[in-house]
């Protein structure tokens, strides 16, 4: 029973937290959509396509945030053998992968009208595509073992090693001469973006993050329950064999 002490506390806590995070996501999303589609001005050079930024950039941030969380969870799982860490890591992977795909697709929809191309093998886009494959690789690896705990162990190593790609993505627009524009929000000092566009972006980013956390909590619940099912099934099979 000791092994489930922490996961049980997580199940209880997450049940209390979930309605609040989900509600926050809904409110922020409504406000963010209004700011992004109605209240904010079209860009002087990009016209209304700049509105794609308000979904593209939050999705991109989440793709990085998701993988970084997985790497941290894997490290925690590896060093402290925390039973929840590996399950949380696995729960994050499909959601992070989805937002990475959304980032790539919305980037394409923005690139076509503005750069005249759906895709370019430049450093930023290629490194994000590699991130997407890392997510898929993790998911494939984790489910490739008969023993689920061995799959999680192998996945944790992949998640940790793959984290090398994160700074490459972040600095790709500075290290290489890319078609993708350099950062405009996270610059030291003042952001190179007007408040009328920065606010919708920040609200949408907060909305996407709250949504992401909601789904990760739900999915972690799923993983914990699935683990319990595996343990019960194993105990039953053992009991039946006796």
């Amino acid at each position, binding site marked *: 029973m000791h092994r489930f002490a922490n996961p049980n506390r997580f199940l209880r806590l997450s049940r209390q937290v979930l309605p609040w995070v989900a509600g926050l996501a809904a409110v922020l999303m409504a406000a963010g959509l209004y700011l992004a589609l109605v209240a904010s001005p*079209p860009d002087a050079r990009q*016209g209304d*396509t700049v509105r*794609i930024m308000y979904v593209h950039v939050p999705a991109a941030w989440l793709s990085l945030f998701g993988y970084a969380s997985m790497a941290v969870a894997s490290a925690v799982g590896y060093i402290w053998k925390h039973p929840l860490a590996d399950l949380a890591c696995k729960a994050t992977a499909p959601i992070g992968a989805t937002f990475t795909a*959304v980032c790539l697709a919305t980037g394409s*929809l923005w690139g076509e009208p503005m750069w005249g191309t759906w895709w370019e093998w430049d450093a930023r886009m290629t490194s994000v595509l590699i991130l997407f494959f890392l997510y898929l690789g993790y998911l494939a690896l984790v489910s490739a073992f008969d023993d689920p705990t061995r799959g999680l162990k192998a996945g944790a190593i992949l998640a940790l090693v793959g984290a090398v790609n994160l700074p490459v993505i972040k600095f790709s627009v500075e290290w290489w001469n890319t078609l993708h524009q350099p950062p405009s929000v996270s610059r030291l000092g003042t952001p190179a973006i007007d408040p009328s566009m920065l606010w919708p972006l920040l609200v949408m980013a907060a909305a996407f993050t709250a949504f992401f956390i909601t789904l990760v909590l739900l999915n972690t619940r799923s993983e914990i*329950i699935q683990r319990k*099912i595996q343990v*019960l099934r194993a105990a039953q099979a053992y*009991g039946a064999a006796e």
Partner: protein
Amino acid sequence: MPDRLEQFLSMGGYGAYVWGAYGLCAVVMVLLVVLTLKRLRANERTLKMLDGLRASRRQQSMGNGDAP
């Protein structure tokens, strides 16, 4: 008013790209919620069933133990 709506929908001629991006996000996010909840519900049902099975089996074996 219909003019303003039309203007809003056309997005300065980039309507297909802008609405394409937002529509894609909406579809993907709704799908994520539906699939995540569906998986959670299915797992919760299975666990409940297995728990019930274990409880009834334990009761059964205890009943047998009591019998002289």
